[in-house]
């Protein structure tokens, strides 16, 4: 029973935290209160559900509890009768149908507000991870390599700016959507990549973050169906995430792409990703997300590792590096060149790339394939100093022993 309650709560947390906070912010207009009351509702659920059983619709139970808690808090803090009345009026209409139709909107509202261009890019990501994805302040702090106290201060500052500068809590009008969407895509993709390859911790993949990012990208694609980069991001996430279960072995050690069991890839997700990608490229406005999705599609559709069309992948990377010359893209381009034209060509391409956490691991792999074992070993050791993810570390250590 206890385990059932904890499991149900963990599931609801992973799925619904962002929705709950988003709804509570709309109802109260107070970000801190919304977060605290949502937290309180989860704490109350643990006690009540153990006693009374798990409710039919956990999210509805939590929304009602969090809302009641907010009403109590506002009353107690004597913020004013008026605010309480408007909260009660708004929540009276909160039956399940209304909730379900409004909830996607609430989450998008929260997402667009977190991604407002008046906030710095790092503030946007930090706030989205904390508020929308429910990461703890400590987890967000670790991602940005700062102390928990520093991150707490940064989050307070961001929320303060939203409140004081009057950043609206809304999905922008259709006219403003095109200029506002790229910032949202950047945050969604960062959210996904953190889920796809967690910066630290025991697991390579944080499935909850990946699902949340994919879910939000779907909601965004429904809102702006004409933007090929939105469909591109969704396609990219689906294609990458389709490989999730094959990316680590039974011991939780990372398995590189060429050694993955392709039968374990999620075919339905790949098909969904390919369908999104076809929709996107039909519009003939190819951007960086579509290019990355096209690369992911090359891998997803190759029946075996040996069948991979590396020549096409290199040419896609050439296009990508022209529009997105990031360190990660340049390093991955060198990987592709190493596969298409041999390890020495890969090593030459890697020489000119900027520093990146993956660079040493890539270098080590290319040196290993060239038979330069001593240099490879020292590159693997260097790579080990650059990742705190235990699945990646285990893989690198295994290589070092081999």
């Amino acid at each position, binding site marked *: 029973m206890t385990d059932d309650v904890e499991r149900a709560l963990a599931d609801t947390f992973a799925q619904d935290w962002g929705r709950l906070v988003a709804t509570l912010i709309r109802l109260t207009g107070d970000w801190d209160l919304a977060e605290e009351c949502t937290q309180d509702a989860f704490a109350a659920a643990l006690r009540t559900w153990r006693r009374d059983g798990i409710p039919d619709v956990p999210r509805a139970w939590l929304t009602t509890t969090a809302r009641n808690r907010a009403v109590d808090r506002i009353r107690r803090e004597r913020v004013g009768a008026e605010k309480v009345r408007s909260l009660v009026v708004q929540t009276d209409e909160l039956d399940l149908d209304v909730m379900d139709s409004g909830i996607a909107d609430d989450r998008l509202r929260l997402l667009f507000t977190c991604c407002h261009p008046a906030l710095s890019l790092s503030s946007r990501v930090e706030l989205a991870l904390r508020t929308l994805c429910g990461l703890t302040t400590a987890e967000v702090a670790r991602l940005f390599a700062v102390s928990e106290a520093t991150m707490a201060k940064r989050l307070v500052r961001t929320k303060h700016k939203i409140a004081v500068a009057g950043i609206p809590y809304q999905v*922008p009008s259709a006219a403003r959507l095109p200029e506002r969407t790229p910032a949202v895509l950047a945050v969604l993709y960062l959210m996904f990549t953190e889920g796809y390859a967690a910066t630290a911790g025991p697991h390579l993949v944080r499935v909850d973050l990946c699902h949340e990012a994919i879910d939000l990208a779907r909601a965004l694609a429904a809102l702006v169906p004409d933007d090929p980069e939105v469909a591109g991001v969704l396609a990219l996430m689906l294609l990458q995430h389709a490989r999730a279960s094959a990316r680590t072995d039974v011991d939780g050690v990372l398995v590189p792409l060429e050694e993955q069991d392709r039968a374990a890839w999620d075919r339905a997700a790949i098909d969904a990703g390919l369908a999104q990608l076809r929709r996107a490229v039909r519009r003939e406005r190819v951007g960086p997300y579509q290019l990355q999705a096209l690369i992911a599609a090359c891998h997803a559709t190759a029946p075996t590792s040996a069948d991979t069309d590396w020549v096409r992948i290199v040419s896609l990377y050439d296009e990508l590096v022209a529009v997105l010359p990031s360190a990660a893209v340049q390093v991955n381009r060198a990987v592709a060149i190493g596969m298409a034209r041999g390890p020495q060509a890969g090593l030459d391409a890697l020489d000119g790339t900027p520093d990146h956490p993956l660079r040493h691991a890539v270098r080590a792999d290319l040196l290993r394939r060239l038979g330069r074992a001593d240099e490879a070993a020292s590159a693997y050791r260097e790579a080990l100093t650059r990742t705190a993810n235990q699945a990646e570390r285990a893989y690198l250590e295994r290589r070092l022993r081999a």
Partner: protein
Amino acid sequence: MQYLLLISADEDLAVTRMRDGAFASFDTWIADLEQRGVLRAHVGLHESATATTVRLRDGEVLLTDGPFAEGREQVGGLAVVDCTDLDEAVAIAAAHPAAAFGQVEVRPVRVS
């Protein structure tokens, strides 16, 4: 909500641009705000060389000839607008002719 728009630019550039017709678009900008009833205050300033900076230190009034911040970019005008949210204030700021060659800082006004 009220926002202060702090309009600044390279002063030499501003003189040239105003002479070359930015005045007309400035009039349009003001007229639009007045018609919408969002303009609470607006002042244009003489060039920064005419400024006097005042400090009180140890009971003594100290004057400096010139603006408090040195540099080519100087404040040339101030406006206070009443808007529903930051998006509206940003749209107003972006429509100011100086936004095209200088910048407009948008600051929420503190309500006591």
